[in-house]
Every structure is written in C-alpha cells, then in structure tokens.
C-alpha cells in the first residue's frame, strides 16, 4: 500500500528547457594564444632555416682563404711562374730505443744492410747504450718499409714536417731559412713569417727561376775567370721595381740547414755596403740636367789632370783624357775632374737632395730584413767633389739599381720588391723633370756603343744596352786597400728602358788566359790588361745579357 501511495504521490517539477551550451570562452582564448605562440616560434624557426638555406646557396666557399690552425703549417713560396721555391712536406724520422731491443746483434746487422753508408761504430755504441737516438731523419719510403719489416719494437717513427727547397742554393739569399720550431730566421721566410704561417695562399715572388739560374751560372764562371771572393747581380724592372733575379755568391744549400756566421755568406745585393766609384757619375750628370745647370752638350774647358782638395789630390784615371769636354763626354769617358766640376755647379744641397730622392743615401725599405745602411758622412766642399765621382760615398747594389731605374724610366719613383705585383700602378710619382731620362739614356748608350766608352764588352747586338762602369778601391778595416770592387750597371733597351742589371765583382783579379771577344769590332784579346770594371764586370754582364736576352725579349 505504501508503495502504491508513493507512486501516487508523483511530484511534478518544472523542467527548465533553457539549457544552452556555453563554451568556456576564456579557455578557448588560452588555446588560441598558445597555438599562435607555437605558430610564431615555428615561423621564426622556418624563417631562420630558410635564411640559412638561402645563405648556403649563395655562399662562395673559398677554400684557399681559410686559414689553418695546424701548428707546424707553413705556406709555400713560388716564383712568378708558379714554380715551387719552398714547400713544407710531411717526413718521418726513425729512431731506436736501445732499452727495447731484444737481439742487439741482429738489429745491428739489419741496419748495416739497410744503411750501408752510415758510421756503424757510433751506432754500435749507441745501441749498447741506454738513450734513444735517431738512425735516420727524413727517411725515404723504401728504407722505412724495409725497417718496418724487421718488426722490432725498438724502432720508433716520428712524423715531422720539413721545409723543402727544390732549387737548393739558387735562392738561398732571397728565401732565407727557418729554425727547428718553424720560425723564419732570415730572408723572405723571416719577413713574411706571419703570412706564411697563417695563410694557405702561397707567397708569389717576382723572380724567374730560369733567369736566376742563368745569371748564377755566369757569376760562377766569373769566379773561375777572375778569382773574385764574391759577386752579386740584380736584374730588375725599371718601371715596376719587380726583381726578376737577385744572386749573391757565395751561397749555400737551403736543404742542408746550418748556422751561417761567416761574413763571406752575406747577401751582397742588399746587405753589402760598398763604395762603388764611377757609377755615381751618372747621378751627378742626371742631377745636373735635372737642376738645369748643365745640358749634355755643355762644355767644360781647361779641365786639369789633378786638383787638390784639402790634403787630398783628385786625379784622372785616364791620363789621355782631353782637357776640353762636354758634360756628356765627361760621363762617357768617366772623367773625375769633369764630374767634380759638374758637382760644384749643382751644389751641396741640390746634389744631396737628388741622391736622397732616388734612394741612394738612406736605408731602403725592402722585403727582407738583411738590408745594409749606407754610411753617413758630413757634407762639405771636398765631400761634394768626391761624391760627384763616387768616392767616399757608399750604398748597396740594390739601391744602385733603384737609382738607375729612376733616372732611366722617365724619372718616376719605384720601390724594389721581391713580391709579384699584378696590379699596374697607374699613378706613378714623378721625381725628376721630364726629359732628363732621355738625355741620360742616350749618354749611357754611348758608353757601351762607342770606342770612347768604357763598356764595349756589353754591347750585345739587338738589345740596345747602355750603362756605366765603376771601379773602386775596397775599404778594409777603415782603409783603402788594393782590392777592388768592380761594378757595371746596365740599362736596356735604352730607347725604352725595361730592365736594369747590376753586376758587381768583389775583389776580382786579372786573368792571364781569358780570351775576350770584341763586341764593337772583330777579333779577340787574350788576358786582362787592367783590373777595371770595363775588363771584368762588363764582360760578365755582357755574357749575362746575351744569355737571358732571348727570355726577356720573348717573355717580358
């Protein structure tokens, strides 16, 4: 009954049908912001990677310019034609640790078979000792394989890096040396040490190996003929200052590294400071024209054979020299008194300034550190007189080449360099007046091509060689000695000069048996009559030009 009652007591409630789903708007907002945030992040990432992909697409990978951090790395040095002059290669040194040897007699026997030329007394002593020792440095592959086949634990190999100079002694004074720690200690190796160690790009020099070889050969033959203690030759472009060849003898093999202390090995081309004699007369002549005090045809009358300056007497070498000469004839005949007169016309300040401008009197900035400093002196009346004909004034052969380049190239300043420069210098600085070079070159040509000149042995047909000789007494321990420094500076072709060649012989002697072949006339002459530049350096310079001429004419 109760259940029926309960069923009957149905309670009706209002059903509210007004339910509407209302999403949590705040929640949706949060989700959307989150999506937008992630979207933004990915968008940013996509942009970054797109930029990176585009960058890789456009990036020019320059392998050569990447520097290397390899500790013992050293870049190559090449000549102007790309021939390797110095290169670092991996080599292997082999040593023996005596403590690890099992059968000492057996290993000694095997070593004798592999290295028959070695001193086995000392090796035997070392094998029976206790300390590690090298059996062979920079071992060849073949010998290394034979050693390794022995299978002895005591044989120890070490990977090393060696500097190889394929031309041996040909470039010894230019390239210089490195020490055991890969530091440059002289020459290009020292001056460009940082560049060689930090960049993979080889250093390209301006020198030409063929020219260098031919010139060196001629200097070696000069030593056989004239018994000189040393010599140097510089071949340089008068318009760019690029050195095509620079040889100094005696030289040394760069592959046999040794400490060089003997003074005879100095680089005579750059470090040797010499009194060079009459080659300075060309500077006096050029300065006179440049300053407008003389012209080639200016006459000097009543030139004496001797004049006194203070305690010293200045005399002529050629006693048959006429008393009346033009300025050009003074240069051609190498007159001392005439040059003094020209110098006096120029004056101290102007001659000094001229010599400084063409780079003769001060130390030269160059691509190697072995550069000599001309000896300073106090100018005065007598010094002006002696400087006018090249006495009592010193400089280096390289500076001489620079000076002659400037006075022959139209009067434009150049700087000697050993580095190949492909950029053409358009804005050359003129330091001499226009027209000076033409007059000087004409006079230099006559020195070689006429009988009055002192350099007929350099008159090689087809090359229009001009030049000036200089015979000077060598200063030894502060005093003039009987030893000579014979120099010849050649400019060619004189109609449009391209090259300067300085040839210097240090202490040449006369040769009794050498046969000279005349260039301006037929016939020969046996024996050296005078120990002057005209009979020594000029002959060698002529032979050099004869040999290198075809290369210069066809290649440069």
């Amino acid at each position, binding site marked *: 009954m109760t259940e029926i009652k309960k069923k009957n007591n149905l309670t009706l409630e209002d059903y509210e049908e007004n339910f509407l789903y209302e999403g949590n708007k705040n929640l949706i907002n949060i989700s959307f912001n989150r*999506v*937008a945030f*992630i*979207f933004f992040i*990915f*968008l940013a*990432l*996509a942009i970054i*990677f*797109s930029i*990176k*992909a585009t960058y*890789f697409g456009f990036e020019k*990978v320059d*392998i050569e310019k990447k520097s290397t951090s390899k500790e013992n790395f050293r870049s*190559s040095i090449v000549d102007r034609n790309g*021939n*390797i002059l110095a*290169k670092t*290669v991996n080599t292997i040194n082999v040593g023996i640790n005596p403590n690890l040897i099992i059968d000492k007699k057996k290993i000694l026997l095997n070593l004798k078979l592999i290295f028959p030329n070695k001193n086995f007394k000392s090796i035997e002593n070392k094998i029976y000792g206790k300390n590690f020792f090298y059996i062979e440095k920079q071992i060849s592959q073949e010998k290394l394989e034979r050693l390794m086949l022995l299978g002895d634990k005591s044989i120890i190999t070490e990977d090393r890096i060696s500097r*190889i100079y*394929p*031309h*041996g002694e*040909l470039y010894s004074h230019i390239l210089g040396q490195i020490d055991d720690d890969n530091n440059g200690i002289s020459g290009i190796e020292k001056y460009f040490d940082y560049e060689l160690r930090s960049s993979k790009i080889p250093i390209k020099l301006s020198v030409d*190996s*063929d020219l260098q*070889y*031919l010139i060196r050969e001629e200097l070696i033959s000069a030593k056989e003929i004239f018994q000189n203690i040393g010599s140097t030759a510089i071949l340089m472009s008068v318009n760019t200052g690029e050195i095509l060849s620079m040889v100094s003898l005696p030289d040394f093999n760069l592959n046999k590294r040794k400490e060089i202390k003997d003074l005879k090995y100095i680089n005579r081309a750059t470090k040797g400071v010499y009194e060079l004699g009459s080659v300075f007369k060309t500077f006096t002549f050029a300065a006179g024209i440049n300053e407008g005090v003389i012209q080639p045809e200016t006459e000097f009358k009543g030139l004496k054979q001797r004049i006194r300056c203070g305690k010293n007497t200045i005399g002529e070498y050629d006693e048959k020299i006429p008393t009346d000469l033009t300025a050009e004839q003074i240069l051609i005949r190498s007159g001392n008194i005439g040059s003094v007169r020209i110098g006096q016309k120029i004056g101290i300040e102007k001659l000094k300034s001229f010599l400084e401008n063409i780079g003769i009197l001060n130390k030269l900035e160059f691509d190697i550190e072995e550069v000599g400093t001309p000896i300073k002196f106090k100018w005065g009346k007598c010094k002006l007189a002696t400087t006018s004909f090249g006495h009592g004034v010193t400089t280096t052969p390289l500076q001489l080449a620079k000076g002659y380049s400037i006075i022959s190239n139209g009067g434009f300043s150049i700087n000697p360099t050993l580095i190949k420069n492909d950029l053409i210098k358009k804005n050359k600085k003129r330091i001499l007046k226009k027209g000076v070079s033409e007059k000087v070159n004409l006079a230099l040509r006559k020195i070689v*091509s006429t009988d009055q000149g002192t350099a007929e042995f350099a008159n090689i*047909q*087809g*090359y*229009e060689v001009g030049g000036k000789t200089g015979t000077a007494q060598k200063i030894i321990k502060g005093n003039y000695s009987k030893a000579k420094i014979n120099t010849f500076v050649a400019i060619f*072709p004189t*109609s449009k000069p391209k090259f300067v060649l300085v040839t210097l012989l240090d202490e040449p002697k006369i040769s009794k048996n050498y046969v000279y072949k005349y260039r301006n006339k037929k016939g020969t002459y046996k024996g050296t009559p005078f120990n002057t530049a005209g009979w020594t350096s000029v002959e060698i310079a002529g032979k050099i030009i*004869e*040999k290198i*001429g*075809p290369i210069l*004419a*066809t290649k440069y």
Partner: protein
Amino acid sequence: MKKLFSVSILLLLIFSTTLIKKSTKIIDEEIFEIIENIRILEDKYELVLLDYNFLSSPKKLIEYQEKYFDKKLTQIDIKKIKKIHFEKEMIIIENFTNND
C-alpha cells in the same frame, strides 16, 4: 576553419623546416666532403708539382741535356726571332728588337 588553417600552416611550416634542415645538413656534409677531397687533391697536386719543379728545374734540365743529348745548346740570336701578329686576315711579322 580558422583552426584547421592555422594547424595546417603550422604543420606545413614544421614539415618544411624539417625538410630544409635536413637538406641543409646534407648540403653541409657534401660541402665538407668536397672541401676535404679538394684538400687531399691539392696536397697531392702540390707534391707532384714539387717533383715536377725539381725535375724540370734549369739545373736538372741542363744535367739531362748533357747526359742524354750529344748536341750542345746554342745561343739564340735575338734578330732571328720574330713576332707574329694576327690582325683580322692579315699576318704581321715584326722583329723583337730594333736593329741598332
């Protein structure tokens, strides 16, 4: 619709980013391999060049000439060497130097 668009863009970006990253990595590896190969070839080339420079140096060539040939090297007369210019259909032959 907006949600779908956003999600699809998002997926597209993720996908494209992955692809780009992957391809960049492949390119990176290829570049590295090429650089390494070039380096090895350069090393070999320089060693061969070193041998060549040594064997063809003027000193060696003169040695070979004396060893293997009977005839001696002769001096070239510069006056006998001529320059040839090709200009249009003309052939111009010039001397190297003035006859002084």
